[in-house]
């Protein structure tokens, strides 16, 4: 999860963040729109107030102005603009001028003496000119935004006598807007916080189950189906239910497979038992037959000499079968780890067996030194293959053995230049008690196949009658370094 790539962020972070941003955005935009509207309305109200005040003053000033009596004008000016009348109002200044702009009364009399023209410059002069020209009430605005001014003409005896001007500060406006802004910011922050909490809650409700589902799927991929808890009835719950159904099906399938494998094992055992019974029964029948004849004709000369070798052959065959089965049994339960040098022990063994026969041994062990495998099972499997090859070359030939590692798989190829296997027999060479030779028990290749299978590997055979056979053993090595713990 890179902090600079939002696309890589966890949903548990993104969801609260997005909700928070959206909520804050909506709250902020709404709030500031309301503030803007409020500001316009407040300004309007302030302007109306200024005009109303100027109208009051103008009305109170008309009669005193007609008789040139300025004191009552000042009194009403001060009274109307006094703080006691309206606490919230902020009168910056107020004045009554005659039509020439001469001060009749001013709220700051010390700076604006009665009887002198109002002193102005710049923007103030322009405002004064507009006020003096005005025939009706008027709202003037400070170019700098500091005040709004209400202007009302003073009319008496059907004549315009002068003008009343009242300036209200916009400070109260700025203050109200400031307060509202504070509230909006607070609300935005609060809502964003609530949004984040909602996002966190949503992520707890949505993201965590998703995480559990992902974990469960990984576990399923490893062949360990587990169920996830289902809460509520939303899409995630639906997904969880579906997943659980799938996991249950996988588990059921695995159970069935295990049962099937068990049944096959039992069946194979049955077949072997039957085979053993059959294979043992044949020599036994011959032996018993010999013994019966010997008992019936104890005095008949030459009979013993003739039958003893037959009995011996029969017993030897039975012993061979039993030995092969014992070898298979031992190897199948061994688990001693061993390195590449163990293969060379097999070479020594077979080299001793082919001594005196015209068989050339081409041995290439290219396994890296760190390759580890199950000693007894692999040795036995290889030895059986080699013996099979030697027996396939009664007239001599060449036996090639190569061992190498390919992508964590141990590959051993055994090749002979023997009699080969008939195409119709290729599919049966690993069946127990299948043999094409009179002396064979038919158990060697079957044992090899069983051992290779117990190591999780495969064995392939390619053969051409009269030219030879090639057996390829492929056994996966357990650990990353090519070793196996087994």
């Amino acid at each position, binding site marked *: 999860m890179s902090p600079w790539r939002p696309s890589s962020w966890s949903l548990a972070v993104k969801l609260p963040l997005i909700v928070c941003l959206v909520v804050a955005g909506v709250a902020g935009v709404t709030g500031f729109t309301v503030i803007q509207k409020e500001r316009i309305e407040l300004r309007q109200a302030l302007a109306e107030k200024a005009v109303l005040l100027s109208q009051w003053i103008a009305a109170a000033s008309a009669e005193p102005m007609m008789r040139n009596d300025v*004191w*009552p004008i000042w009194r009403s000016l001060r*009274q109307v603009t006094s703080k006691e009348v309206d606490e919230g109002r902020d009168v910056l200044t107020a004045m009554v001028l005659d039509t020439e702009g001469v001060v009749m009364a001013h709220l700051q*009399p010390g700076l604006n*003496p009665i*009887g002198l023209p109002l002193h102005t410059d710049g923007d103030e002069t322009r405002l004064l000119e507009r006020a003096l020209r005005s025939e009706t009430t008027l709202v003037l605005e400070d170019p700098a935004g500091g005040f709004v001014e209400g202007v009302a003409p003073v009319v008496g005896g059907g004549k315009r006598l002068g003008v009343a001007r009242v300036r209200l500060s916009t400070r109260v406006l700025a203050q109200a807007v400031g307060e509202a802004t504070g509230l909006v910011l607070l609300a935005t922050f609060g809502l964003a916080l609530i949004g984040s909490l909602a996002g966190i809650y949503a992520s707890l409700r949505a993201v965590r189950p998703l995480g559990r589902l992902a974990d469960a799927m990984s576990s399923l991929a490893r062949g360990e189906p587990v169920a996830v808890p289902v809460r509520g009835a939303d899409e995630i719950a639906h997904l969880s239910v579906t997943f659980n159904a799938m996991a249950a099906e996988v588990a059921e399938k695995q159970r069935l497979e295990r049962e099937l494998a068990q049944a096959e094992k039992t069946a194979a055992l049955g077949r072997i038992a039957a085979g053993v019974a059959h294979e043992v029964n044949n020599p036994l029948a011959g032996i018993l037959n010999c013994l019966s004849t010997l008992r019936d004709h104890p005095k008949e000369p030459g009979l013993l000499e003739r039958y003893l070798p037959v009995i011996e052959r029969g017993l030897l065959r039975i012993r061979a079968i039993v030995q092969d089965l014992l070898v298979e049994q031992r190897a199948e339960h061994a688990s001693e780890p061993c390195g590449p040098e163990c293969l060379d022990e097999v070479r020594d063994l077979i080299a001793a067996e082919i001594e005196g026969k015209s068989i050339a041994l081409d041995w290439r062990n290219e396994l890296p030194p760190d390759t580890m495998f199950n000693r007894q099972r692999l040795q036995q499997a290889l030895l059986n293959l080699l013996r099979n090859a030697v027996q396939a070359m009664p007239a001599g030939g060449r036996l090639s053995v190569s061992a190498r590692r390919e992508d964590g798989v141990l590959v051993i190829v055994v090749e002979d230049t023997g009699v080969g296997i008939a195409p119709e027999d290729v599919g049966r060479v690993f069946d127990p008690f299948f043999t094409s030779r009179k002396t064979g028990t038919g158990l060697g290749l079957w044992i090899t196949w069983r051992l290779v299978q117990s190591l999780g590997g495969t064995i392939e055979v390619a053969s051409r009658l009269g030219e030879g056979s090639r057996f390829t053993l492929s056994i996966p090595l357990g650990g990353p370094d090519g070793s196996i713990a087994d």
Partner: protein
Amino acid sequence: MGEARRIDRRAFLTTSAGAAVAAVAWPARAAGAPVRIALTAAAVRDELPLYDRWAAYLERHFGRPVHFVQRKTYHDVLELLRTGDLDFAWVCSYSFTQAWDAGLVDLIAAPVYRGSPTYRSYLIVHNDDAAQRLDDLAGRSFAFTDPDSATGYIIPRAMLRAGGRDPDRFFRRTFFTWDHGQAIEAVAERVADGAAVDSYVWDYLAAKRPQIGRLTRKIGQSEAFGFPPMVARRGIDAALAERFRTALAAMPREADGRRVLDEMMLDGYVEVGSAHYDGVRAAAASAGARADAQPPSAL
């Protein structure tokens, strides 16, 4: 002093805002027709509880209810005397000379202020103003009290005349406030650069309302003139006039009367003759009339 006897303060504000009449009748307490006494700018008129107490004192002496009547201008009060709608009035010294000379009034008594039945005209400016004498106010704005006021109009004009100035041109702008207290306020608020006011009113306000004393400063004063007297409408019941005279004279000796006097910062009342106001007559003769000096009610 019951609440019901108070004059509604708002009624006074209306008086100053317009030219309307603001006579307020107390509920009758003593039997008989009320005795009507007018107050003018010569008195400090907005101390209402004080006048309640004074009325109570006088009611005790008259055995009749007492109504204090307020009018905006001296002129209005003179009109009420003329029409017989008043019994007594506390008028300005100049108004008195006019009314006396017109045969409208008789003297009852004059208040004794700081040991003497006299007062002066004070020339005041804002405390921050650099002016030191009347000449420094040339070309500036000036508040007069009332065209019928001695200290607030006649005397300062006479002083200007005596100094060889034309009182109609000396100031840039003048206006009337129709009350000494408001003339002081006009200076305190800098609406006017200077004002001429009744020394009694200024001393009274400076003592009772220190902020006014702090904001204004006295830069000159006139010689002494007869203090605004209490007068009776000529032709009223002599016994009533005598009872009033006795009541006023008795004030320093009676507890409630003493209390009212103390609050008014007066020592008592003393009988004076018309000649006591000759100085005012002389000042009025030299002050000269002014064309625009028309009270609002004259329009």
